[in-house]
């Protein structure tokens, strides 16, 4: 068998074929959306101006990218140096997460060339959307700079890499401040819609709920990502990364367990403050309890058991449960419990094109992650910079 035959054969893997098909579909949907307008591909209307692209691509994209600021602050600000090897994968995931949030947002907004408009053409700086836009733009820049040493090591640009490496602590602090601001502001966006969002999900504490749950999501995403990449990228992982692997899970599971317990209590206090106990007995109340007990309290307890029993398998499955719970929460706030009082024929259900674009964006993220992680020093230290940490 010649080398050419081998390389041709290796290209036709199930992963590549499925990815290729999704990318072709996504390209066609992109032409459709930008050529014929948002109305041609979505089920959005004046009652439901924000749909799946905001509820999943943006809200879930941002919250699941919280692993970047959570891991870098744990290592560089709180001194948990033993988890150092997890920083680069977490930063890469966060950077790509935010990058594709911005790309996905273009499908919702249209006219991509007007992306900088909020910073120059706007009616005031007190707008919550302006705050979110500014924070995301700044944080994406911070993440790009935090990620760039890996790319510069790969490109062999030593001086520039060393210069940016010196900014690590400053960038981490900046990242934590910006994340605190916009993770909570995304929740604050829904405070202006008390008549539209179901009272069980509506609360003046929404910014706090969004921020606290983002910490749990970030910790869980780092564990889930470690689990998902463990097999396919095993040959790219350094001994240091693999040696720290189990400890990272036990440490992060403890953190996530405690944060989720705190999140559970503030959610219950939110019900008490608004006196919504009677709503818990309704159908919506059962759905709310399903989310709160099944995807907040249960993972908190499972993480605790997993870390006490040193049960890696349980912790991994719990990280998946937590991530699904956070996604469910964001979709409840933005889509499912939003406009809950409207008759069913006026309720929003995403079109297949909207789902197709979301799958397309997620696939592009996975492909880009794979491209970078197989080439640049993400799961291992570059030999020239091994002793620098």
């Amino acid at each position, binding site marked *: 068998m010649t080398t050419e035959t081998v390389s041709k054969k290796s290209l036709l893997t199930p992963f590549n074929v499925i990815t290729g098909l999704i990318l072709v579909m996504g390209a066609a949907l992109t032409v459709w959306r930008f050529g014929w307008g948002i109305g041609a591909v979505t089920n959005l209307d004046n009652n439901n101006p924000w749909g799946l692209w905001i509820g999943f691509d943006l809200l879930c994209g941002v919250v699941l990218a919280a692993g970047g600021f959570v891991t870098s602050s744990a290592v560089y600000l709180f001194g948990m140096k033993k988890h150092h090897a997890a920083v680069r994968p977490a930063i890469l995931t966060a950077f790509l997460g935010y990058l594709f949030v911005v790309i996905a947002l273009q499908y919702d907004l249209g006219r991509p060339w007007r992306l900088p408009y909020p910073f120059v053409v706007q009616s005031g700086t007190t707008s919550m959307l302006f705050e979110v836009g500014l924070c995301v733009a700044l944080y994406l820049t911070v993440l790009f700079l935090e990620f760039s040493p890996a790319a510069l090591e790969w490109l062999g640009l030593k001086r520039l890499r060393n210069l940016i490496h010196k900014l690590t602590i400053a960038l981490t602090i900046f990242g934590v401040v910006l994340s605190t601001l916009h993770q909570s502001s995304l929740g604050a966006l829904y405070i202006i819609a008390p008549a539209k969002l179901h009272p069980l999900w509506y609360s003046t504490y929404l910014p706090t709920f969004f921020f606290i749950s983002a910490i749990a999501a970030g910790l869980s995403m780092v564990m889930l990502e470690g689990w998902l990449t463990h097999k396919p990228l095993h040959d790219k992982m350094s001994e240091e990364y693999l040696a720290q692997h189990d400890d990272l899970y036990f440490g992060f599971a403890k953190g996530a367990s405690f944060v989720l*317990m*705190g999140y559970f209590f503030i959610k219950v*206090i939110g019900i*008490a*403050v*608004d006196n919504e106990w*009677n709503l818990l007995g309704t159908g919506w109340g059962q759905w709310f309890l399903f989310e709160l007990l099944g995807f907040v309290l249960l993972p908190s307890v499972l993480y*605790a058991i997993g870390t*006490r029993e040193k049960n890696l398998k349980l912790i991994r499955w719990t990280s998946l449960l937590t991530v699904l719970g956070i996604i469910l929460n964001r979709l409840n706030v933005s889509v499912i419990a939003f406009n809950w009082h409207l008759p069913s024929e006026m309720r929003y259900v995403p079109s297949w094109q909207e789902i197709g674009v979301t799958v397309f964006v997620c696939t592009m993220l996975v492909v880009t992650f794979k491209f970078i992680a197989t080439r640049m020093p993400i799961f291992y230290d570059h030999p020239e910079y091994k002793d620098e940490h």
Partner: protein
Amino acid sequence: MEHAFYTLQDFLLYTKGWAYILMGASLVVFVAYWKFLFSRDKD
């Protein structure tokens, strides 16, 4: 938990009362939960 409220003060007394009870309970639970999480680390 149906409850009749006749004044704003009545409502706030009730809701804040519950909120403070829950906050107090959460502080006790957090200490116990912390001990539960970290107790095996000493072994």
